[in-house]
């Protein structure tokens, strides 16, 4: 039973560029949430996708966008990268609507913006 997978593992970009991060949820899960974890901080919620729609959004600018595909996998896109976007980006998957809905995290993508 595969867990949550993310790609790439590491990424280096320069300011102003655009980046796409990918996530495959745990088998049987239908919901994907994205988090940003800056150095020394706890993860912060970016948004959640369910049924191919953005269901909830955290306090992040429109430069952050996403997509969910029919197979439940998801992408996170960040445009016009800033130095402050350097962080570990975590994907979490869950099965929505269950009384014991729990998010399971992937290993993350380390993004460095130069």
């Amino acid at each position, binding site marked *: 039973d595969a867990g949550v997978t993310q790609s790439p593992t590491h990424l280096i970009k320069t300011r102003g560029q655009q980046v796409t991060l990918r996530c495959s949820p745990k088998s049987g899960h239908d919901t994907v949430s994205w988090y940003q974890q800056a150095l020394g901080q706890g993860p912060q919620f970016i948004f959640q996708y369910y049924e191919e729609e953005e269901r*909830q959004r955290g306090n992040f600018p429109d430069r952050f966008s996403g997509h969910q595909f029919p197979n439940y996998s998801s992408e996170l896109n960040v445009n016009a990268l800033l130095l402050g976007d350097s962080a570990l980006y975590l994907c979490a998957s869950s099965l929505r609507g269950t009384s014991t809905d729990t998010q399971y995290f992937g290993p993350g993508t380390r993004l460095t913006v130069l």
Partner: protein
Amino acid sequence: AQSVSQHNHHVILSEAASLELGCNYSYGGTVNLFWYVQYPGQHLQLLLKYFSGDPLVKGIKGFEAEFIKSKFSFNLRKPSVQWSDTAEYFCAVRAWNTGFQKLVFGTGTRLLVSP
């Protein structure tokens, strides 16, 4: 807005010492509570969770946590730590409203257990 406070940022213990990590949250409604652990070089893993029922919940590796609603707290405990418990520990809260799914995390506590 929801917030989660972990007051101990760094904790250093010797093996066999007892552990208690504090977690307080601000939300007054129904909550789900979680502790996640991040071992060096590994991804976030679920340690334990509370949804309802018995406020004392047991997790993996001998950890337990107690939900005290009147104190808005969900402290993590382990009677005797091991060197392998060296990790960063995150408390997280989810407000259970229809469609309200996001986890709000604390800033984490780095635990170093010396052999």
